[in-house]
C-alpha cells in the first residue's frame, strides 16, 4: 500500500494542514526576516536596501567571540543534561521503595512555567539574600557573600546550571523509558553469568540507550542553542557581555536597539549555523533509523 500514486496523494492530504500552518506562521516570517537582513530597517519608516552591509557589520564586531561562547555554553549545557539525566534515569529505575515518589518529584522543573522557575533561580544566586551563598557561608565554604551573577565566570556557569535544571526532567524521563524498554532477559543472562551491577550497566544499559541519548542530545542541542529566557531574565547577557549568546545578541540588536535589519542578519546567521548542526543530526539519526527498522 505504500509508494503508489494514491498513497502519495493520501499522505500529502494528511500533511497539508500542518504544512500550510507552518508555511504561514514560520516560513513567511522567515522569508520576511531574510529580506529584512538586506535592508536598514529600523524605527524609521523608510527602508533602504543595503546589500551585504549588515553581514559585513556582524563580522566587524566581536561576533566570533559570541559564536564560540554560544558553542561552549551549548556544549556544556547539553553534556551536563545528558550526564545528570542518565544518572537520574538509572537511579529512578532501581527497584527501591519510594521510587514512584522520586519519579514524581523529578518533574516539577519541566512543568512550571519557565519564567517562574528562572525567578526562583535568580533568588538562589543572589549574593546577599540567596540560598547558595547563604548556605555555603553557614557551612563555612564561603567567608563572604558571593553574588553568582556578578562575575563573567560564575554567571556563565550559573546560566548553564539553570538551563540544565529545566532540561533534566525530560531527559531523565526519556532515558528512563529507554532503560525500561531494554529486554529483561539480557540482564538476567548477564546476571546468571555472574556479571556485577556496574558491569551490566556498562555493557548492556549504556550501549542500548545510546540511540535515545543521541536523539535527546540533538533535540536538546537545538533548544539549548536558542535558549533565550534563562539568560535574558538572569543576566540580560551581562556582566560585560560574558553570557551573551547568539540569540541574546540577536534579540538585543533587533528588539533591544530596534535595528531590525541588522538583527535579521544575525538571525539568518543563527539559522545557518543550526542548519549545519541539523545536517549532522539527520546523518546520525538516519543511520540509527535504518538500524532500528528491522
Amino acid at each position, binding site marked *: 500500500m505504500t509508494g503508489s500514486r494514491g498513497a502519495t496523494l493520501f499522505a500529502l492530504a494528511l500533511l497539508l494542514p500542518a504544512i500550510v500552518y507552518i508555511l504561514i506562521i514560520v516560513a513567511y516570517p522567515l522569508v520576511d526576516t531574510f529580506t529584512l537582513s538586506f535592508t536598514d530597517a529600523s524605527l524609521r519608516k523608510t527602508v533602504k536596501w543595503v546589500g551585504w552591509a549588515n553581514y559585513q557589520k556582524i563580522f566587524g564586531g566581536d561576533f566570533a567571540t559570541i559564536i564560540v561562547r554560544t558553542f561552549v555554553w551549548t556544549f556544556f549545557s547539553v553534556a551536563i543534561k545528558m550526564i545528570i539525566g542518565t544518572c537520574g534515569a538509572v537511579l529512578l529505575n532501581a527497584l527501591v521503595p519510594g521510587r514512584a515518589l522520586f519519579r514524581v518529584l523529578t518533574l516539577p522543573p519541566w512543568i512550571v512555567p519557565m519564567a517562574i522557575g528562572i525567578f526562583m533561580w535568580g533568588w538562589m544566586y543572589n549574593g546577599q539574600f540567596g540560598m547558595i551563598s547563604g548556605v555555603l557561608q553557614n557551612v563555612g565554604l564561603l567567608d563572604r557573600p558571593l553574588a553568582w551573577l*556578578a562575575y563573567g565566570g560564575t554567571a556563565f556557569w550559573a546560566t548553564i546550571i539553570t538551563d540544565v535544571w529545566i532540561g533534566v526532567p525530560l531527559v531523565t524521563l526519556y532515558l528512563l523509558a529507554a532503560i525500561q524498554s531494554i529486554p529483561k532477559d539480557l540482564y538476567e543472562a548477564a546476571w546468571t553469568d555472574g556479571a556485577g551491577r556496574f558491569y551490566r550497566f556498562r555493557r548492556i544499559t549504556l550501549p542500548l540507550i545510546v540511540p535515545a541519548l543521541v536523539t535527546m542530545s540533538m533535540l536538546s542541542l537545538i533548544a539549548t542553542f536558542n535558549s533565550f529566557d534563562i539568560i535574558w531574565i538572569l543576566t540580560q547577557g551581562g556582566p560585560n557581555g560574558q553570557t551573551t549568546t547568539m540569540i541574546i545578541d540577536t534579540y538585543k540588536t533587533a528588539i533591544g536597539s530596534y535595528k531590525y535589519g541588522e538583527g535579521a542578519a544575525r538571525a539568518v546567521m543563527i539559522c545557518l549555523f543550526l542548519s549545519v548542526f541539523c545536517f549532522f543530526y539527520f546523518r546520525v539519526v538516519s543511520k540509527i533509523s535504518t538500524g532500528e527498522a528491522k
Partner: protein
Amino acid sequence: MRHYGTLLAGSAVVLATMTAPSFAEDKTVSMIQCGDAIAETYPDLIKKWEAANPGFKVNVEIVGWAQCQDKITTLAAAGTPVGLAYVGSRTLKQFADSDLIVPIPMTDEEKAGYYPHIVETVTFQDQAWGIPVAFSTKALFWNKALFEKAGLDPNKPPATWAELLSDAKTIKEKTGVPGYGLPAKTMDNTMHQFLHYVYTNDGTVIDAEGKITLDSPQNLEALEFIKSLVPVSEDGPSAYDQDDMIKLFSDAKVAMIEGGPWVRNQVSKDIQWGVAPLPVGPKAKGPGTLLITDSLAVFKGTGVEDQAIDLAKLLTNPENQFLYEKTHGLTPLRPVAGVDGLVSEDPSWKPFLDGIAFGGPEPLFLDYKGFQNAMIDMVQSVVTGNAEPAAALTKAAGAIDQYK
C-alpha cells in the same frame, strides 16, 4: 476522496477561527502610563478633558516599568502607535529622527516656567518633542550609625571623592560592612551612576556640536574612581542595580549609596540616614548631579495628535503637575509657589533641589540603547577587572560614535 475533504474542511475551520475580525475604534486617544497604577490625579483630569472635548475618549493603559518602553516602541514600529505615552526623555531623539512622534509647540513663556536645563532634555533640532512629566536629581545617602561605629563624624558626609573613598575604606575596615553601594548590573542605572561621576568632575560625554568628548582626563578619573571603589563596595557590583542598593542600604549592608528623592521613602525606618549633595571629583569646578526627565510624547499617525497634545498640556500644567509631583514624591519641574513649603516641611528635599542648577542631562543619542549598552559594558569591564579604565574608556568612546 470524501475523507480528504473532511480533513481539509477541518483544517479550514481551524484556520478560519484564527482570523477573528478586529473591530475599529473611533476617536479614542490611547495613552500608556508606565508604573503600577494610574496617577491619582489623572482620572478626574481626564474626565474633565473628555467633557470639554465631546466625541473623544481617553483610554489609559498601565504597563509595568519593565516592559513599558519596549512596548511603546514596538507599537510605534509596527505602525499601531499609541496616542500619548510616558517615555524616558532620552528616547525622544530617536523617536523624532525616526519620524514617529510630533513636535510639541511650546511658548517661550511655558519654557521659562521650568527649572533650568529641563527643557533642554526634550529639545532636539530646536523643537520640543515631549512635555516633561517627571524629574529627578541625585544625591548621596549615608548611614549615620555606621559612620559612628567606624569612628567617623556621623554628621559629616563626604564632600569629595577622596573623602568618600577614605570614609568607605574606614567603614569597611572598622565595621566589616561595605562602605559604598556601587550598582553595575546590566541596567540603565549603571550608566546613570557613571554619569554621576562625570558630572561631579566637570566631564561631558558629547558636546553641543555632537562631538564625542567621552575620552577626556575628567572621565578617565571618573572611571578610575569607580575601579578604586570596587574593593570598598559590596561584593560583585555587576549583580546589583540601584533598587538593590536601596534594599542593601535599608538593611545596613552598605553605608553609602547615591540615589534619587524616592530613596527617602523606601529606606527602612530603623536606619538613621542623612542626605547630601553628591561628592565632587578633583577636577570639579562646582557641585554637579545627574538630571533625568521623563516626558509625555505624542505619536504620529493616530489621527488624534492635536487632542493628545491638548490632553498632555492639561495633565502637566503648572498646577496639576505640582500636585502630581507631590503625591508621587518627585522633584518639582517648576519653581512654583509650593516648592518652598516642600523644603521647610521636609529638609531632605534640599540637596535634590539645590542640585538642579548644576545638573547634567542624560546625553541625547540617536541610538540611545546602543549608547547605553556601550557605557554599561565599559563600566562592567572595569568593575569585573576585565579591562583597565584607560583602555575601556577609549574603546567606549570609539564605540559610541556610531550611535550619536
